[in-house]
């Protein structure tokens, strides 16, 4: 962690002091900006973030009321688009330098890490499309509409990939019940697997292998309240996946 002094009562720090990320929409990492009111009175304070065009930050400013002694911690995702040249880039947080080392994913990485674009029909705040491939069981993609179906979640690659297995993890309560797995070919989308009546948290669909640059899951219904699409994790692989290092 590095500490930075700004206005009289405001201390801004950022954690970690350096980042290493791979290119890809969902391969970024968070910087946590901490704003502390070190003075005796409440203040309204601003922190500023700057980044070169090669890096994408969803925000360049954080403003907050801070009571005395209070620290506000705000995560800010740092990403680099596919194709960004490898190298060290610099984010500045209220004037202090945070080096960000960028490289392309290892060619042997899994299909989730190799994805160049991940998108969805809609998403709730904090439950974006990337949450379905972040390996974190505490996060999920959650569509932004209530009781409106179908929804879709999609991943795409710059180079065509061989796919044959799609494992879906949903929630134990209000989980996903019905969905189609589709791949994009010359003639458009075609369904390669259909899941109906699922009540399990994890479901594995295996289908004859396809070579494609895009795969999507079209969600059709949920269990119980049937309100939203909930994809906790999606693991896409070739029929006989390699071990990844």
């Amino acid at each position, binding site marked *: 962690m590095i500490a930075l002094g700004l206005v009289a009562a405001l201390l801004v720090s950022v954690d970690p002091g350096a980042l290493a990320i791979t290119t890809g929409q969902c391969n970024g990492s968070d910087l946590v900006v901490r704003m502390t009111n070190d003075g005796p009175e*409440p203040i*309204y304070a*601003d922190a500023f973030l700057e980044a070169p065009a090669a890096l994408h930050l*969803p*925000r*360049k*400013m*954080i*403003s*907050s*009321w*801070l*009571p005395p002694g*209070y620290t*506000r911690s*705000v995560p800010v995702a740092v990403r680099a688009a596919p194709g960004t040249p490898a190298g060290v880039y610099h984010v500045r947080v209220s004037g202090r330098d945070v080096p960000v080392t960028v490289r392309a994913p290892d060619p042997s990485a899994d299909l989730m890490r190799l994805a160049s674009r991940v998108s969805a029909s*809609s*998403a*709730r*705040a*904090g439950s*974006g499309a990337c949450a379905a491939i972040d390996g974190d069981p505490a996060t999920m993609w959650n569509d*932004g509409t209530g009781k409106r179906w179908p929804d879709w979640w999609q991943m795409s690659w710059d180079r065509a990939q061989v796919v044959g297995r799609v494992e879906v993890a949903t929630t134990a309560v209000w989980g996903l019940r019905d969905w189609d797995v589709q791949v994009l070919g010359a003639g458009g989308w075609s369904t390669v697997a259909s899941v109906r009546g699922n009540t399990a948290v994890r479901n594995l669909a295996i289908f004859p292998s396809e070579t494609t640059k895009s795969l999507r899951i079209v969600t059709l219904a949920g269990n119980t309240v049937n309100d939203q699409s909930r994809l906790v994790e999606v693991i896409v692989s070739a029929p006989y996946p390699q071990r990844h290092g």
Partner: protein
Amino acid sequence: MGLPRRRFLALSGAALAGALPRPRIADPFTLGVASGDPLPEGVVLWTRLAPRPLEPAGGLPPVPYPVGWQVAEDDRFTRVVRSGTATAAPEFGHTVHVDVRGLRPGRDYHYRFRTGGHLSPAGRTRTTPARTSSPRALRFAVASCQSYADGYYDAWRHAAAEDFDVVFFLGDYIYEGAIDSVGGSRSDTGLALPDTFELETDTLDLYRMRYALHRTDPDLQAAHAAFPWMLTWDDHEVQDNYADAASRFPDVPAQDFLVRRADAYRAYWENQPLRRSHAPAGPDMSLHRRFRFGDLAEAYLLDTRQYRSDQVCGDNLRSGCADREDPGRTLLGAPQRDWLLDRMGRSEARWSVLAQQVMMAECRYGGPADRRDMDKWDGYPPDRQRILEQAARTPGTVVLSGDLHYNYAADLHLRPDERPVAVELVGTSISSAGDGSDSTPQLDLQREYNPHLRFANAQRGYLRCELTRDRLRADYRVMSEVTRRGGTVSTRASFVSERERPGLVAA
């Protein structure tokens, strides 16, 4: 604009002569103008400088800008009656609040702003009638819930073409959730919203950007420019279903939630035409207030979010739940409730209008479980009982509500078998919940189990109301659609209620 514009520039030039030179900026009046909280002798004028409205800080450096303002009797600004210079300060997001005084009661006025050689669009406003007057009528709109991502604001365009003395806006002006690059159901590919709008809105910079996004909508701008508004908030100006210091997520400590609330309240005050006396102090902001329309009506703007006891029985729809009857629990907070009861008790106006957020009428959701919504007055029956006891002694009590994205016309009973003591008009959303439909199975069930609900409808729109000396009339104006531009408006139903004998009757 010819002569009046030249005169205005000359006036402002004199007013700004002492100001320091500043970098030239592009047109900063991208968010329109607004007026609100009218009095017999004055009104609050609002604008915000934001040459690039979808960027943090509106694309302005952190320096103050002087902003000239004018109030005229005519729309060509040939008869200017008040003018001056205000400051758009960066610590208030470059918003401008002018508390104009010295106007005449019950009159239309026109206003505009100027800065850096840029002239704002003009707005029209109206002062309230003299306190000693006996107005024949008061015409007002009731609106709420304008989720940007759920649809277009054509309802506002239609409302702006009507003739209202005031607009009551009852909350959910913004929503805190993610909005994608095409604006959700708007599917507006030209919008290209930055992904900043996909973040949960929980810091001051993000709340400010949310208000800016809404205010870029031309139909909403038109409605603000057409009438003075009296606003209160509901939950989404901060977070869905929050209560006082309690987040909707039980694991968020009150200390943390209050910091978020402070940011939300600050942005709310900055972006609405409110007096400085209502500006927040940290996480606290006094928003409840009273307005008088001669001897015809008194309006009470209430705040059912900031002081409420946390929802019981896990919030949402519950059956049973004896805890909701706990007399120690409150929706308004004791000081606001006692202020309201005291003022209603002493009012000499013919009508008492309670402009607030959540449905007051009992609403059984029907079926064997017979659930009620713990977030509404049904979750706080002791407070409701006291309001209705006062209403029984205060002829002409009318409750206005929003929140639900449904239209209802409801009789309010102190006791089920007795005559109503007041009436409630629940106005539907401007856009929230999308196109909607005339009814839903849920509404059908509610009508069956709640005979005091005279009308229910699930379309979008607003209420057009008129109070005359002895009668209330409400027209339920509904939209054909909102997810595409160009929706048309029609009157789905009309009701009247007599002051001396409350009860909604189809007109």
